[in-house]
């Protein structure tokens, strides 16, 4: 339980309360089953839609609530307390929607945003390929102009909600020789000719989230699906990730808080050597470090999200920090949670082993934590060169 005052507005407190209610009533009771069966959490997506949460960051004129990065962060933090596979499915829709909010034409916004805001259709984002992970510029998927159409060929890999989402923002090469200006962003719809899905991946954690390949085989889409201008693909991708990364940090905070709550509750009940194990300093110090790191991570995420919403343009470094620190904290905290629960923690009867399996992805997706350090390091190099 955090009793630090983050000065939430009444409206923001409503978002927290509602997301927390959904985590407790709808997510926690089914998370172990979803993890076991890898079932896509459609029922919970419907609850989140009913709650208006898919529209948090979408402008009011397109059916959303007109919130920003901060509102998104406080919502996913609470949902992640329940299950980060469910939360990732929710957040992936925003990752697909942000590019349309930022770069869409009026027509594209009218066509796609109301459905994304209402949760009637899930969105997804496709950049990664088999040979292009951290090295995003190595993508091979191409889009070639052909009269009134673009024709896409190639395969995207590990796309969250692939096959389940209906609206996709895809990055493809439009001019192979133009380097960073050689890619463009496109809006794809499930059902487009030549657009199919690969098999569902089996994963260590995050198992309720669907991860699939997107396969483009002479996929023809009308010209008006180009998002932003030709050549803006990588810029759109980077801006989208900059905006989304604090959200991943917030997921780390929510997951860590859940792991701490489980550990502290257990440590008070578990008796060894005639006393509850929380009375041992070894356990107390672990819990103290967990709680302190979580609060620091939360404060970082909230401050960065608010800075982004205030209109700050130069956000790559701080956004990377807001992803890096909380997700490293989540890995450490969930691992320590399993340690505190000992043998019980390793069993599926308790939720912490799932939390630890799930936590690992946070250090990998949306840019590995090594890439985040690169971003921060390069920004520092630039900053200090100017002094």
């Amino acid at each position, binding site marked *: 339980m955090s009793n630090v005052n983050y000065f939430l507005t009444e409206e923001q407190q409503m978002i927290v309360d*509602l997301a927390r209610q959904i985590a407790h009533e709808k997510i926690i009771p089914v998370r172990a089953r979803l993890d076991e069966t890898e079932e896509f959490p459609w029922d919970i997506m419907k609850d989140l839609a009913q*709650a*208006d949460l898919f529209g948090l960051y979408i402008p009011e004129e397109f059916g959303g609530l007109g919130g920003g990065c901060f509102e998104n962060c406080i919502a996913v933090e609470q949902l992640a307390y329940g299950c980060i596979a469910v939360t990732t499915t929710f957040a992936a829709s925003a990752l697909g929607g942000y590019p349309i909010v930022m770069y869409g034409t009026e027509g594209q916004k009218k066509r796609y945003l109301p459905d994304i805001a209402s949760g009637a259709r899930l969105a997804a984002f496709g950049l990664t390929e088999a040979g292009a992970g951290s090295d995003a510029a190595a993508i091979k998927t191409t889009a070639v102009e052909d009269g009134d159409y673009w024709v896409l060929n190639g395969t995207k890999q590990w796309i969250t909600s692939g096959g389940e989402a209906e609206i996709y923002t895809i990055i493809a090469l439009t001019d192979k020789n133009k380097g960073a200006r050689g890619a463009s962003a496109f809006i794809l719809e499930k059902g487009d000719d030549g657009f199919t899905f690969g098999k569902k991946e089996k994963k260590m954690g995050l198992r309720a989230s669907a991860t699939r390949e997107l396969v483009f085989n002479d996929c023809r889409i009308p010209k008006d699906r180009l998002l932003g201008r030709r050549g803006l693909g990588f810029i759109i991708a980077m801006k989208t990730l900059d905006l989304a990364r604090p959200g991943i940090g917030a997921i780390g905070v929510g997951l860590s808080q859940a792991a701490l709550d489980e550990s502290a509750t257990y440590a008070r009940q578990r008796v060894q050597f005639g006393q509850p194990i929380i009375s041992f300093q070894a356990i107390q110090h672990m819990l103290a470090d967990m709680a302190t790191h979580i609060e620091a991570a939360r404060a970082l995420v909230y401050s960065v999200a608010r800075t982004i919403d205030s209109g700050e343009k130069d956000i790559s470094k701080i956004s990377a920090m807001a992803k890096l620190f909380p997700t490293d904290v989540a890995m450490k905290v969930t691992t320590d949670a399993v340690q505190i629960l000992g043998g019980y923690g390793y069993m599926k009867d308790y939720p912490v082993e799932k939390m630890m399996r799930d936590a690992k992805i946070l250090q990998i997706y949306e840019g590995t934590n090594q890439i985040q350090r690169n971003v921060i390091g390069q920004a520092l190099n630039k900053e200090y060169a100017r002094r």
Partner: protein
Amino acid sequence: MDIVVCIKQVPDAESVKWDHKTGTLIRDGVKSVINPFDYHAIEAALTLKDELGGKVIAVTMGPPQAQEAIREAMSMGVDGGVVVSDRAFAGADTLATTYTLAQAIKKLGDVDVVFCGKQAIDGDTAQVGPGLAVRLRFPCVTYASQMDILDGERGLRIRRISEHGFDVVEVEFPVVVTVLSSLNTPRVPSLKGKMRAKKAEVPLWSASDIDASLDKIGLSGSPTKVYSTFIPKFEARREFIEGGAEEQADALVERLKEAGII
């Protein structure tokens, strides 16, 4: 479709404490929540509105803070609500409560359906729904566990659970329906609903606002005295009576006499 849902604020079962000396509930400082069954009544009302259109009004009798219950119902999608609130209502039993609620519902105008939870978890009488139906002169279907709309939108087909099994009944509007938790899964509130509810005016109606006769409300309208409370037992016995028709009839009459029924 004009739909009313009756709700009640009850002490939060998770925060309630027991006074071992007096053997009563300590209600001070206990959070009030909407009676759990009433969430299912709200969901039934909203589902019907989703299908047939119209509006849903929530009604509750209680102190002014019961406005919170109305706001919570509104955050789920209920269009509006009133709290029937007056010191004169205090001490009401189910007879006085049904009179009071019925007066408020009559003031709302024409109503097609009234939904109630099957019972409140504090009083556990399950009498308010049926009592309300009598006051409104509506048919009443209790313990609904499944509900469909009849062709022509003229009424409902309801599966109701009893101690011995279930009945499927068809009933035309207007009707009072009390619902079980197995009927549906209540929806979560929405952010837009929460914001609307926060700003909404929730009127408080006094005894004179609903033209209530003072002898029918509150303590003076409540003949019920509670001496003890218990959970009734339903023991079913079954016996096959053999023999010819006349023999069986005689045996049956004998049994009924023994049981004091005739």
